[in-house]
């Protein structure tokens, strides 16, 4: 197969960046999208040009490191699939493919297609955990958890933190990411004691990081490689509302 790939090149945060066009031929349909970029990079290196920087690690769809906007869609055309698991057979021979980084103010471009997603870590640090120090845990069977709750918690916990939701959201909101963690922990009895403060603190951290507000457009869930449902955001809103009504203040800083 042969493709015309237009890739976003940007040397750093100071540079304005631009799309640069490359022809990539001899592409096997069995290549993953990232392997196609590997091939391009090998050729660029041998030609004396700088290869395209892009983030990737596990290449099996779980670490959340990879993430490219392909033809305007976060993670590309195949639903519920990370960029690393997208294969070239999803494209048609001769296609022009536009590859851009995640675009959001809280995700500054480091280089080319690599962005800094540290803002997501900041949101988790605001309360996306259960405060239980090592050694203080009770026996695992002390608190049974209804299977439905465990399953639902798992569904939300499956988030890989890739940031596609932010990349796709017209508002640049990270509410799906934040809501997934709030829903995961809030659904379990172990997470219940901090449910109110967690919801308020994580929302505050989310807003402070510069993410936009949610208007329920649903673009996030459409590109989410793990299918985190939009309903998690409703659940998050409910938690925030209830916590506010109860007058639960955030955790003292």
């Amino acid at each position, binding site marked *: 197969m042969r493709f015309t790939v237009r890739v976003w090149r940007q040397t750093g945060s100071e540079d304005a960046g631009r799309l640069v066009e490359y022809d990539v031929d001899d592409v096997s349909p069995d290549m993953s999208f990232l392997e196609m970029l590997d091939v391009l990079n090998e050729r660029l290196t041998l030609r004396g040009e700088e290869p395209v920087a892009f983030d990737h690690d596990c290449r099996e769809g779980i670490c959340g490191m990879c993430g490219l906007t392909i033809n305007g869609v976060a993670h590309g055309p195949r639903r519920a699939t990370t960029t690393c698991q997208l294969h070239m057979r999803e494209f048609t021979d001769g296609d022009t493919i536009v590859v851009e980084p995640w675009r959001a103010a809280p995700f500054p471009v480091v280089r080319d297609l690599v962005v800094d997603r540290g803002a997501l870590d900041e949101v988790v640090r605001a309360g996306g955990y259960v405060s239980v120090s090592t050694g203080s845990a009770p026996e695992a069977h002390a608190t049974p958890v209804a299977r439905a709750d465990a399953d639902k918690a798992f569904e939300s916990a499956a988030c890989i933190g890739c940031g596609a939701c932010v990349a796709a959201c017209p508002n*640049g909101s990270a509410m799906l990411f934040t809501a997934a963690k709030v829903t995961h922990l809030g659904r379990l009895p172990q997470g219940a004691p901090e449910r109110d403060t967690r919801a308020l603190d994580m929302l505050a951290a989310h807003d402070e990081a510069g993410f936009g507000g949610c208007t329920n457009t649903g673009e996030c869930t459409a590109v989410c490689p793990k299918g985190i449902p939009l309903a998690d955001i409703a659940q998050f809103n409910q938690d925030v509302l209830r916590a506010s009504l109860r007058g639960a203040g955030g955790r003292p800083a």
Partner: protein
Amino acid sequence: MAVTGFILFFYVVAHMVGNLKIFFGETAFDSYARWLRAMGSAVLGESGVLWTIRIVLLVSVLLHMTAAIQLARRARAARPSGYRHRPPVQGGYAARTMRWGGVIIALFVIYHVLDLTVGWLNPHGVPEEPFLNVTSGFQQWWVVLIYTVAILALGLHVRHGVWSALRSLGTVRASHGPLARTVALVVAVALTAGYLSVPYAVLFGLVE
């Protein structure tokens, strides 16, 4: 956003139901209009309730618009540099037209007040004769066109707004997602049909 949206939504529903009075004839419609002014006059005096409603609505509209502008500004701040290759719509069309739809509706409301409440822009323009105001207006094709565009925008706005507001208030159980979506759609379609029935009935001479 959700709270003011709901206030406006309930008003819009009541307004639509009131409009349908026109199918009962001139007398019924006009007396309904008179009743609106007289409503609660024992307590708040002539048009007291009506003005209270108007003030609540005005405040709601202002708050609704303020919130919308804030969200839009945050959104712009969150993505200062857009995608070169514009992403196609992944979510719903209604969701993507909330902002422009809101602007269209706002402009229409101004026109609508000048047309049918104050009467300045109405060809008949006699505040005490609402039936004739309505029928004379809707005999003009361009009035009907403006009205149609606005109502379709309203329908889309309500379609996403109702559903979204239910989510924002967290009142939807996760498992009720599809149900809420259907309810929002049905309400939006009913509202659109209800509103559009009047101008087209007038235009095609079903109401004279």
